[in-house]
């Protein structure tokens, strides 16, 4: 379409839509939705292997690692120790130093514990991880994360899985002006217009899971999200007209009867 690649820590990504792999009906649906979305980054969680039923298939058998960047997360971790442990396990199980770092503060909101996040990020960066932190829509925290070496920040639009859309566009704007690294809006998107808005505001990418997987037709929503992110990005680059209170005629007055 146009050459507009996203570069994070020297890695190039062609899609600005990143997707999670949870909550789908089965792996066939997961794979189809991801294919249709055009995403080239997919997030995965790290969990115990089911040792009692070995017949179950593995998600990664359904996703070609040559086609996708697998981004392990530390979802479900509420302490610095747990998040660091899961990140290390992800690296041991995987192939790269990338981690989407989550340190959650509260089960009801799944809001990040930003103090814990910064602490965990420091430890992991020292160990050579490329830390992409899931953070609040807080410009000060975003700046601190960048200062300690995060090559991108991932502020939420709204609580994970809430579908509320962008609850604080002004904070996101301030984050975009405050830090000079890519901003990936992560969590809270409900439908295509939310994703388009995030991109129009100037986000570099959008990460979502539930908005696609939880839709009545996840495959159709995956396609909608693909276009929404592309349209929002194009609109951002094109530059919107200013808002005005009164009309400005589009047709000339000259030549009228």
């Amino acid at each position, binding site marked *: 379409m146009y050459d507009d690649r996203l570069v994070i820590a020297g890695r190039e990504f062609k899609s600005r839509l990143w997707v999670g792999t949870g909550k789908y009906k089965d792996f066939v649906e997961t794979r189809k939705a991801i294919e249709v979305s055009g995403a080239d980054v997919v997030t995965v969680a790290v969990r115990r292997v089911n040792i009692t039923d070995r017949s179950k298939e593995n998600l*990664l058998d359904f996703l070609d690692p040559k086609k996708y960047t697998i981004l392990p997360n530390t979802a479900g971790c509420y302490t610095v120790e747990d998040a660091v442990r899961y990140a290390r396990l992800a690296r041991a199980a995987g192939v790269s130093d990338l981690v989407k770092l989550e340190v959650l503060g509260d089960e009801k909101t799944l809001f990040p514990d930003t103090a814990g996040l910064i602490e965990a990020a420091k430890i992991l960066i020292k160990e050579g991880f490329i830390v992409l932190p899931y953070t609040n829509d807080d410009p000060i925290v975003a700046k601190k994360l960048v200062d300690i070496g995060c090559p991108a920040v991932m502020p939420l639009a709204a609580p994970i899985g809430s579908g509320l859309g962008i609850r604080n566009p002004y904070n996101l704007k301030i984050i975009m002006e405050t830090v000079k690294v890519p901003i990936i809006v992560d969590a809270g998107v409900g439908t295509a217009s939310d994703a388009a808005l995030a991109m129009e505001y100037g986000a570099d990418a959008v990460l979502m899971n539930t908005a696609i997987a939880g839709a009545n037709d996840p495959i159709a929503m995956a396609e909608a999200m693909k276009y929404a992110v592309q349209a929002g990005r194009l609109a951002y680059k094109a530059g919107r007209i200013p808002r005005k209170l009164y009309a400005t005629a589009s047709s000339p007055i000259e030549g009228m009867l």
Partner: protein
Amino acid sequence: MGEALKIQVNGQPRLCPTGSTVGDLLRELEIKTERVAVELNLEILDRQDFDVRSLKPGDRVEILSFIGGGGLVSGERTEGGRTDV
């Protein structure tokens, strides 16, 4: 072989032949070693060490891998979102 040694694997008690290594345990469980992480008593093992690390009675082994996830807590996942190696 002969005597069994009692260990814990992913939180469940398990008996292994004496002298088993971590690699033996993974083979017995039919778990492919690529894409898994193994913790032995909280120490994350290098994949190339699986066959040299032998198991002792009371060892706690955790075997983990990637499953479907976005930013979810574990209880939120549907059955279809689960995966194994």
